[in-house]
């Protein structure tokens, strides 16, 4: 199982590798895991990931670290996690959906 840092680094690299897909998107995402938070900022095709909470996130994804890591690595079905409330999304749901498309 990779560490959360590796997963978020991969997300950052993934967006950077295809900046055209993030063009025009300006959003701050916060990931609240067990005892830790991560922030993903996307601004005009550029992505930056940093540890810690955001000042004013547009969208916050909440899950235990284990569940999040299992979702990220394909071991937990995110739809099941969401319907079982093991993954919660607060804030702008439209931006959450844009993020998932961006990372597809």
């Amino acid at each position, binding site marked *: 199982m990779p560490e959360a840092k590796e997963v978020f680094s991969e997300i950052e690299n993934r967006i950077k590798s295809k900046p055209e897909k993030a063009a025009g998107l300006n959003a701050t995402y916060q990931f609240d895991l067990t005892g830790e938070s991560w922030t993903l900022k996307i601004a005009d095709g550029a992505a930056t990931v940093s540890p810690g909470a955001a000042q004013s996130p547009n969208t916050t994804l909440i899950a235990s670290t284990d569940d999040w890591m299992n979702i990220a*690595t*394909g071991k937990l079905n995110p739809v099941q996690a969401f*319907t079982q409330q093991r993954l919660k*999304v607060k804030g702008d749901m439209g931006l959450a*959906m844009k993020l998932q498309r961006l990372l597809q």
Partner: protein
Amino acid sequence: MSATLVTDVSVTSRPITESPLTERRWVRRGELLEAARRVFERDGYHAATVSSIVQLAGLSQGAFYLYFVDKKAVFAALQEEMATLLRRRIYWATRDESDPARRLTAGLTAYFEFYDEYRNWMRRLTFEGLGIDETFEARQVQLYETLAGGFAPTLGELGVRAPAVSAAALIGMASQVAYWKHYQSQGGPPMTATTLAQACASLFLHGAASIPISSPPEGDTNA
């Protein structure tokens, strides 16, 4: 492995601008997807109905059409969602493995573990998805091409000639072996995902005579 990282939740079946997307709506959509998967697994694509899906989800028929145009649309959404899950699982299972032989086995193990977990879906997809229409076939072909593209560099590192066509053959073999394990094999010692992966990798790279003896002998199958 060069398989792409995908971290999406699922595809959207309707433009999100049609109505405000709320957490409740997202949950409802997820519940419909989950119910649909169970119904497709149980009844198959052709026998499944929107009525049976909403009944299992505990929602009204009208709720279904807020999220999906028809049965085909929800099947397509599931097809993409499950493909994403599989690609993601294989990617992370192989990402940090530097030894190509171990990477090959790790990737195949992830495939067989996924098949173990979603065997009924995979069975329906394999045997019915290709017979629905060309859009379903195109999605399935895309998945197979992505998986093969992920395995090809590893096969190249292992000295396999023509890694692209070899990777396509490997994926086809893995799919058939997984189906055989769950729906055709009778008797013989139980085979874990790892055992199957080792047998497949050995068969593919060194020939049938190299398969470890822990695999069931030929006479134990009805294939």
